[in-house]
């Protein structure tokens, strides 16, 4: 990988000199400076830095506004805020726009180098470059190229095994959980070995070692493993991914293939929080009484609108931006990407109708990932329409989480398809008014309304009561 580009943004020359001197000692960096937020954006447009050290209080455009714009246009850029201002509220705001780290002045040079090195390692890893490792004490028989840590599970019983199963599944991408065949086979094998291999007064360990591409799960007994016919079958299923030798059984799983990855297409740039649902009445001790079961079956849930969503919903754009002015400001590339969405209009309908005709998990994912995912990325690349992107991501999450309920209820399915088709038409109309006709006096006319419609869908399909903190309801004059 070529040298990483590091940009130092500070209006005070002395501060820039100090930071430059600190960073110069790091190998593999090309360093530039900017004197304020506006200058930083200009440098980003031309130079595309990997990492930015950003001051907050600056003339012309402060660090917060500059970071917001940079993260919207270049979401991959890592921004570390370096400031003398100690303000938890500001840190929270910075974090919400995607700032990766916050460093207080006076500068701890070792700490700042350490943080930069960490981010640099992640960037190099993403580019497929990392230093080859050779760990002398690797336990797994597959590779000595493992990282300098291990995760160890001491397992005494089936419950401990379940904890391990939960841990490994939680590291799978939830979008492809249903296709984690290899992980499932591994869990079955380990469960089978545990049942036959664990005796009273002893326990077994599962030691997890990781390289940058693979994860090695080694089950270690204090006695030699005896293979039962069923165990042999399970090992054969795993083929070359499993080795059983004396008292250890080891399975290797790839981290970056589609069956075992921590990357979700819907959460690339914007995080749609999983819908936060709670039963209306909570019992401190779960009891399977008839009443509880009926309450659960009635599916009467409450969808609480959190503070962030509240803000997105209620934002009133006092200074309206006309479409004609807005489109002039944005780059041609971004505009092209929005125009490309036209090709998705038919797909939006087609994928929905396919799902309606053949309601399967796969078909719902075809819509959420192939259609909604593309839309979210394109809208995210504009830095103005956070509520729209959030609403779409939230809708995708809702559809996935409620897929079973939707699939099994033809009425819900029909309503969801109808409503989602309307949402698609609303987006087509929004694109026309903002980007093609450019005739609207307020580019944000759809934002909160669209988000609200997505919530109404949750209300209708999920049988949820929407509860806002500032629930105004109806006000008569």
């Amino acid at each position, binding site marked *: 990988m070529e040298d990483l580009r590091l940009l130092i943004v500070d209006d005070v020359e002395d501060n820039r000199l100090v930071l430059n001197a600190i960073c110069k000692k790091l190998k593999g960096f090309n360093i530039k400076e900017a004197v304020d937020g506006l200058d930083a954006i200009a440098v980003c447009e031309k130079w595309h830095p990997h990492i930015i050290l950003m001051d907050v209080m600056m003339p012309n455009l402060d660090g917060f506004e500059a970071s917001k714009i940079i993260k919207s246009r270049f979401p991959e850029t890592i921004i570390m805020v370096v400031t003398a201002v100690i303000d938890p509220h500001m840190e929270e705001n910075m974090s919400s726009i995607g700032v990766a780290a916050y460093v207080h002045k006076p500068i701890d040079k070792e700490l700042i180098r350490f943080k930069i090195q960490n981010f640099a390692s992640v960037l190099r890893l993403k580019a497929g470059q990392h230093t080859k490792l050779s760990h002398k004490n690797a336990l797994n028989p597959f590779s000595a190229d493992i990282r300098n840590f291990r995760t160890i599970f001491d397992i005494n019983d089936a419950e401990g095994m379940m904890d391990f199963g939960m841990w490994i599944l939680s590291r799978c991408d939830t979008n492809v959980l249903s296709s984690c065949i290899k992980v499932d086979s591994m869990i079955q094998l380990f469960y089978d070995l545990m049942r036959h291999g664990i005796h009273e007064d002893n326990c077994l360990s599962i030691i997890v070692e990781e390289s940058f591409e693979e994860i090695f799960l080694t089950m270690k007994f204090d006695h030699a493993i005896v293979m039962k016919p069923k165990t042999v079958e399970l090992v054969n299923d795993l083929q070359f991914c499993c080795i059983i030798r004396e008292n250890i059984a080891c399975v290797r799983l790839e981290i970056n293939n589609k069956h075992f990855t921590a990357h979700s297409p819907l959460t690339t740039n914007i995080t749609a929080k999983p819908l936060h649902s709670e039963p209306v009445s909570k019992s401190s001790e779960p009891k399977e009484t008839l009443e509880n079961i009926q309450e659960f079956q009635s599916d009467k849930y409450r969808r609480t609108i959190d503070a962030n969503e509240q803000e997105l919903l209620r934002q009133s754009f006092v200074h309206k931006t006309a479409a004609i002015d807005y489109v002039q400001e944005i780059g041609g590339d971004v505009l092209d990407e929005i125009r490309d969405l036209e090709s998705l209009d038919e797909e939006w309908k087609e994928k929905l109708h396919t799902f309606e005709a053949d309601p399967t998990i796969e078909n719902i994912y075809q819509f959420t990932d192939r259609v909604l995912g593309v839309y979210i990325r394109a809208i995210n690349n504009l830095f103005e329409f956070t509520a729209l992107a959030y609403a779409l991501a939230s809708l995708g999450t809702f559809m996935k989480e409620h897929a079973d309920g939707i699939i099994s209820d033809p009425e819900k399915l029909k309503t969801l398809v109808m409503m989602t088709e*309307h949402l698609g038409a609303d987006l087509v109309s929004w694109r026309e008014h903002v980007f093609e006709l450019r005739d609207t006096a307020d580019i944000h006319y759809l934002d909160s309304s669209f988000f609200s419609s997505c919530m*109404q869908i949750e209300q209708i399909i999920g049988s949820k009561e929407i509860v806002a903190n500032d629930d105004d*309801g109806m006000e008569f004059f």
Partner: protein
Amino acid sequence: MAKRVIIVDDSRAVIATAELALDEMISSGVIEFKSYLNPAELLGKLQSGEENFDLLISDVNMPEMNGLDLAREIKKDERYKTKPILVLTTESSNDMKMAGKEIGVTGWMVKPFSDDKLVKSLKMVLGV
């Protein structure tokens, strides 16, 4: 006789949601339900006498025309001066509400709305 309820909102999804919420009132013949995506089109039809309503439900932020401007224009017309207009919007600032009140809108309902609240509000305003 069925009361004529018109909703004007640029969003097809909002119109569909309201129609679902009012389904029972529509199917039982208590109300006639008509929707418009474009406020300017509705205004034109109201002014020419081609359209009429017993209750208008209007969004605020729409691409062609602001819902409060629409209400203001409608209220200028003697035929609709006393007809109720409900605003259905995500806007909840007091300034906006005050502007609505001054124009003469009857009530302000914030999205997302619950079906019950919408139905109750309609029944109350229409006296049905």
